[in-house]
């Protein structure tokens, strides 16, 4: 202290103090002025959430409850996360057309912005799975094709068919086709487990493996019909149908022609 007070009257003391004071003021100002900026972002966010809430109240609350708490006919959405909302609403499954066995894929009712607002609102209720970003979804770079096929046959083919064409489940429920589905929606389906589908957590199937599955699905989608018309890639049923109609039909036609008497 003594040492410091010795320089009290040093000629550099005043300018030094000034520099310190200015620094202090500047720092204080910048800290103080940063707060209003952050709150502006939060304000924008809350505006999106608010928009989502309004959309939710109009379009969803009659079944899912005014606070997304669920009801007799629809589950609670608290904690389902943005990924769930994005999958269900952006693929047109929600809102449901009717209360039949299962929500089916159709033209989405909401625009992408509205979907984002709904997702933000539901995500604001409680933490849940988030929508995977584009950087995460680079399946072409991060996925492995053959491994994806192996994973698909191990985990997905039992419901979605060997070529991802979909399949029947009990009581009229079904596993839809995975052909023509956006990669982000495939990913979301795996992490949220919509409808009859189980959740494939990151411990069961790592994010990288999920990308491999998506890569294989996209390759299967793009694969040309290698042996001629694919007949729906559903196995021998359509093959049997073809041979019993067109196949034997052509041959019987020729047989009738051969057995006709020359006129």
């Amino acid at each position, binding site marked *: 202290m003594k040492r410091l007070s010795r320089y009290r009257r040093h000629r550099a003391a005043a300018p030094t103090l000034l520099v310190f004071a200015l620094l202090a003021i500047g720092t204080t100002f910048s800290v103080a002025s940063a707060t209003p900026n952050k709150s502006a972002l939060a304000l924008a966010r809350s505006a999106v959430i608010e928009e989502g809430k309004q959309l939710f109240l109009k379009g969803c609350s009659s079944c899912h409850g005014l606070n997304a708490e669920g009801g007799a006919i629809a589950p609670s959405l608290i904690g389902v996360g943005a990924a769930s909302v994005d999958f269900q609403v952006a693929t047109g499954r929600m809102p449901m057309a009717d209360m039949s066995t299962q929500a089916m894929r159709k033209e989405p009712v909401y625009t992408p912005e509205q979907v984002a607002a709904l997702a933000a609102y539901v995500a604001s209720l409680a933490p849940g799975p988030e929508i995977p970003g584009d950087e995460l979804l680079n399946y072409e770079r991060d996925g492995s094709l*053959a491994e994806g*096929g192996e994973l698909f046959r191990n985990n997905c083919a039992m419901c979605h068919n060997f070529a991802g064409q979909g399949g*029947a489940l009990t009581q*009229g429920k079904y596993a839809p086709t995975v052909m023509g589905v956006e990669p982000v929606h495939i990913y979301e389906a795996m992490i949220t487990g919509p409808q009859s589908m189980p959740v494939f957590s990151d411990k069961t199937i790592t994010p990288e493996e999920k990308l491999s599955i998506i890569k294989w699905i996209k390759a299967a989608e793009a694969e040309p019909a290698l042996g*001629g018309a694919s*007949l729906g890639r559903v196995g021998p*049923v359509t093959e049997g149908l073809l041979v019993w109609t*067109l196949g034997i039909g052509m041959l019987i036609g020729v047989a009738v022609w051969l057995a006709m008497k020359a006129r």
Partner: protein
Amino acid sequence: MTARERIAGNVANYVDERTGAAAWMKKNLNKVFPDHWSFLLGEIALYSFIILLLSGTFLTFWFDPSQREVIYDGEYQPLAGLEMSAAYASTLDISFEIRGGLLMRQIHHWAALFFMVAIVVHLMRVYFTGAFRKPREFNWIIGVGLLTLGIVEGFLGYSLPDDLLSGTGIRIAEAIIQAIPVVGTYLAFFAFGGAFPGEAFIPRIFIVHVLILPAIFLALITVHLMLVWYQKHTQYPGPGRTEKNVVGYPLMPVYMAKAGGFFFVVFGVTTFIAAVASINPIWLYGPYTPGQISAGSQPDWYMGWLDGLVRMAPPLESYLFGYTISWNILIPGLIIPGLMFTGLALYPFIESWITGDKREHHLLDRPRNAPNRTAIGAMALTFTLVALINGGNDIIAQQFDLSINQIMWFSRIGIIVLPPIAFVITKRICISLQRSDRELVLHGKETGRLVRLPHGEFVEIHEELSPEKKWLLTSHEQNGPLELPEIDKSGVRRPSAIRNKLRSRMSQANAEVAPKVTGKDLNEIEHH
């Protein structure tokens, strides 16, 4: 005589002097075959068999029937670096690396489907026209044998590539073997050389598929055709056609040309379909691993009805003397098919027992003139069709937005209820058609021309049928039911009364017809 004719004559003479073939050829090349499109259905099966032999031989050059594990390093990238059996890898190589291999695989598989379709359609023709009657019962049994072996051969064939779908089928076959009471487990171990899947099964079924069964097929087909040759072909009734003659074209040159041409047509159609439509895309199924399964796993259609029966069976199981009896597999997987094939093979004998008809028949029946037989056939087909539909229940549910459970219940109830309904409806339709034939003979064809008579009455002109047509509609036999009195002449009850009662009931049902037009009826019409 030109030089060419002289050379041909000399060659023929040279051969004849050493083999004596001329007389035999002269006799047999002039053999007459009746002409009808339905007589060509069996030929489709024969030609498909030849196509199967040719294309199958091609495939054996590259197929490696081994379950040894290999790492795939071929062209098809979605499977690159995966472990798989040599059988599967070599099938992939045939599909993607052997020139024309995929086409040959597809020709082979489509030809197999054609083979089975043709057998079934041919069987239907033989059944519904009564061509199985004496003296052709043995040939009928050989035919049923070919059908049964065809199902087995087809199943073994599509099991060879060891892909995910066929492995699933083998797993089900193993389960059905295991369901045989007491010895099932041992039989399964015997067949697979240990626990499923093991490494013995593919090599074993390969030898059965390419050697044992084709040899049996060749033998049976040869006997089948020799019997047709020896017994002569049946023919449809018509003017000039009797039980003692065959009306048609000689083998040489007309039938030779037609049959030879038809072979190329069958080959062409099979190749066309194989070129434009994919079949059994094993690269999509993936290699077989017991831990994997695909939704909508299906057998080929000729196994589909068996699969359908198993799918609809309610879960019944008993535990007797330390053995598990899986009725849900045993009944639909073994007992019902066993009964069906036995009944099919014995049908000629059952029918002749019911009718008491022990005579030879070379003239065919029109299906309507044997209402009972036609109705039994419709009943059996309905049963099989319901089972087949249930075999594809998951695909049907998925494609038509139906519930798999509802389809299963439809099949469970339908397989019991629908066949009798089909029987009754078919029989009624047959008898109505007989009535309409009778109407046609008695009153002629309605021409639609209305004439007003001088006193104002309108009448429609009926055109009388040609004598040929009348012959066709009236030439068939209508035998009454068997007379099997319960009490014999001395007033004593016969010991076989119950059996006779059953026989006479069936005989009566069999003899239910609309009476055909007789000469007496026509005379009455003349007098009007």
